[in-house]
């Protein structure tokens, strides 16, 4: 699935989930999403960095320059308390929406 087909806000949600797991830099976040989705979702820089800025502006994440495990200098993103709250809220909402859509699709599916 190309990145243009994602429902709005789901990218932000996934990034939050990644950050809930560990503090990470941009490239790492993209890799993590790709890995967890078993290759289905490839997040390009054009979507990733704007999304990260959105998170920063909303206060859901914090960014600091630091060093990675491999000793390279990178900008590391950490989940904030507000971000954790939003993650929980949006996850529930997402689940509810998907369930609802699934129901519609199943009900209208040819017998």
């Amino acid at each position, binding site marked *: 699935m190309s990145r243009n087909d994602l429902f709005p806000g789901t990218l932000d949600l996934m990034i939050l989930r990644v950050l809930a797991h560990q503090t990470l830099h941009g490239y790492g976040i993209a890799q993590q999403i790709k890995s967890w989705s078993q290759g289905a979702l490839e997040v390009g820089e054009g979507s990733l960095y*704007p999304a990260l800025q959105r998170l920063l502006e909303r206060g859901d994440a914090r960014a600091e320059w630091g060093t990675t495990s491999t000793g390279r200098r990178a900008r590391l993103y950490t989940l904030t308390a507000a971000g954790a709250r939003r993650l929980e809220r949006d996850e529930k909402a997402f689940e509810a929406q998907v369930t609802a859509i699934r129901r519609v699709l199943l009900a209208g599916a040819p017998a």
Partner: protein
Amino acid sequence: MIGRFIRRLHHLAARRRFEQELDEELRIHFEMKVEQAVASGVPLEEARRRARREMGNLTRAREQARSAWGWDWWDGLRQDLRFASRSLRRQPGFACAAVATLILGIGANATVFSLARAVVLDGLALDRPDEVYAVGDPQTLATEWGTWDTDGYERSADLLSLPMFRTLRHEQQVFGNLAAFSSFTRRGYWRVAGGDGPRDVGTLRLVSGNFFEMLGLEASRGRNLADEDDAPGAPLAVVVSERFWRRKLHQVPDVVGRQLEVNDRVLTVIGVAAAGFDGVHVDQTIDFWMPLSAHANLLGLEDRSSSPNVMWLRAAGRRSGGIDEGVTEQATARFRDAVRAEGNLSEDEAERLDRTVLTLSPLARGLSRSRHDLERPLELLASVAVLVLLMACANVANLQLARARRREREIAARLALGASRRRVIGQLLTESSILALLGAAGGLALATWGGKILVRLLIASDSVLADRTDLDVRLLAFALLTAGITVLLFGLVPALRATGRPLVPSLRDGGLGRPTRPRVAPGSALVVIQVALSLVLILAAGLMLRTLHQLRGIDPGFIGDSVVIVEIDPQAGGSDGADPTRLERLYEGVLERIGSLPGVNAASASLYPMLSGRGWTTSLHAADSAVDPEERNVRILTVRGTHFETFQIPLLTGEAIDGSEGAEGARQVAVVNEVMARHFWGMTDVVGRRFGFEPEDPHEIEIVGVVSDHRFDGVRDDIAPMIYLPFAQVQTPLQSIEARITGMDPEAALGAVRRAIGAAEPQLPIVRAQAVPQILEEQLAEARALTRLLTVFGLVALVLVAIGLYGVLSYGVTERAREIGIRLALGARRGHVEGFILRRALGLVAVGCVLGVGCALALARMIRSLLYDLEPHDPTTLVATLAVVGAVGLAASWLPARRAARVDPQRVLRAD
């Protein structure tokens, strides 16, 4: 929420660092990508190439990252401002023309607004001003008089007597607090008690004890008047205005308790009024407020102030809860009861009382004589200002259109590259806004300066209203609002048009290859509107010019050259001011002195100065007259000395009087004017006829002479029936000393007369001294001021029209340069081409004129009352106006026509 806003601000402040960090992040991302590819076996170069291709153009990513912080609109605005100012600086001619035009348009409106604000909008600084109401009609309240029972029907009562006020105050339940103030002001000749220097003059008004309390004003020093000061026998107290204390008493800190000598009486200053309060009348400044009971002491008349027959008070009160019909009825009922309680009502009077109603007018905005007088000129000025603004906008819109046309390619390129139409329009509007704001700034400066001039021209050169035309929040808001409207008017349409054109032709050759469509270009429509508007303005100016000319040509009925009038105040000296013996001595002494001056042909004294607008009106009765009982009013002028000779008023039949006739026991005589004779008896030879003032009087006054009519009230006013009575017969204090002096210039003559008066009566105050020609000129002041203003506006309009027409025509020539070139190449004669342009110009002007004449006729009523002996559709003026506008149109089209004729076909037909 707050945290978010702070974060956003932080981002805005640290923009550059943000960009740098993002760049670095993206670089690191790239390197990590390469690293991983290499780690999975891809050679370095290949990995690099692949990564570069995948990451591609990051401009969009950067843009979106930036957008996340929500400052896009700010970035856009800054960009637009920078671009707009650069663009305007590159074309300074356009920018200057546009801004200058806008300054004129916005400035004209702001000026009129500041005057309107001072006269109409401003109010009194009272406590809860909306609760205060005055008894009477707002127009009458501003004057010193009451409304006459003119149509015999309902009469509004707006003057009360002192006993009536006291009863009403006690009995009425409509107002929480009812106060009174004298309907007139008096001059107070004052100096600090105990001094003997010259006296200065101030204005005083009498008020009831609860006046300040009712208005809700606090004294700024000491205390205000209170009821105990208004009791008979109370020590004489006065409250001075803050302005008076500041300017005339030099802000002495211990003013409370000081004593002032006013009109020869010693008073104690008990307080200074609240700052900014100059009285209830907006265009008058009061210096002293004294209690009503001080009347007898100060004004030099017999003490009739407590008489129930002397109505001299106005009432005002505070009432919360508004006024409706029920309240007015209640108030009227109470009033009628109060009057009846006085007793002594004749049947006639009782009947009139039942027809009397009270009108209650809000006092929040104060009373103003000028407000009423200025209604018509203000209306006219406001309309004119709006017209000028519309013309200015039309002009600038035209300039904008022409400019946008030249930028068509640039705009097309931007749209083609992906700029949204909204952004481009935004940029164009930013440019317009800069122009409008500059115009507003200049217009405000123009307004503060112009407002004062307007006040001086239209009201009086020393009016306190001139202070109120300064810049304040409202004026600023008005200027900005006008600027905003102008942007919409002149900026939006060109912007929409400029961005709405099809892109490909615009990109290809700037649109010059398009066939010209035969529809009417908006530029032409604007010029037509401008011609129409300027026609209206020029017509108005022309009409006023002719009116002024007519006014100057009015024959006043007397010869004013070489005559000077000195206005005196014989009653200033206190209660003996009206003593007849003393007055006789005064006039005898003064006139004798003046008579002995060199060059004096005649000297006299009369009741009121000529053309002062003041007059003594009363009704008279003549048994053998067939005149309508309702129309028996005449003006009376008491004279002493050779009044008719001084003014060279011709005697038609009989003999003149010299003021010494009619003394005790002698026969009572009078001289009348033609209007009076014809009005009462239908003919002019009325010598020998008799009349009286009361119906029961024996008609003992015999007419001994008839003089020719002359203007008395004002140069423009109709001549009223007049009777002239000798001073010895009716000893009213005469306020005008007149002399005809030849062989001296007016200044010298005035000086000589003043000195003579000063020598004869050193304590006699001189109120004013003017030569009669000057008085006549002043009568025309309003007409002159309006004429000047309209002429200025009219000329401005003509200039705008010329520029506008020139712009549209030359733009048309540029647009059709190719077409013209082709025609010339095919053999058309240059004369034809010129003629074509000229015809086009005249066509626009003609349509504009027709439109303009229509508008002018529609707006005629606004100017009709200001004209004298002239109709708004006066043919001569109309023809002259058309000629002027036509000539300007031709002149403006001359240059574009010549340019069209000189188009070089070769140059134009080559690729652009």
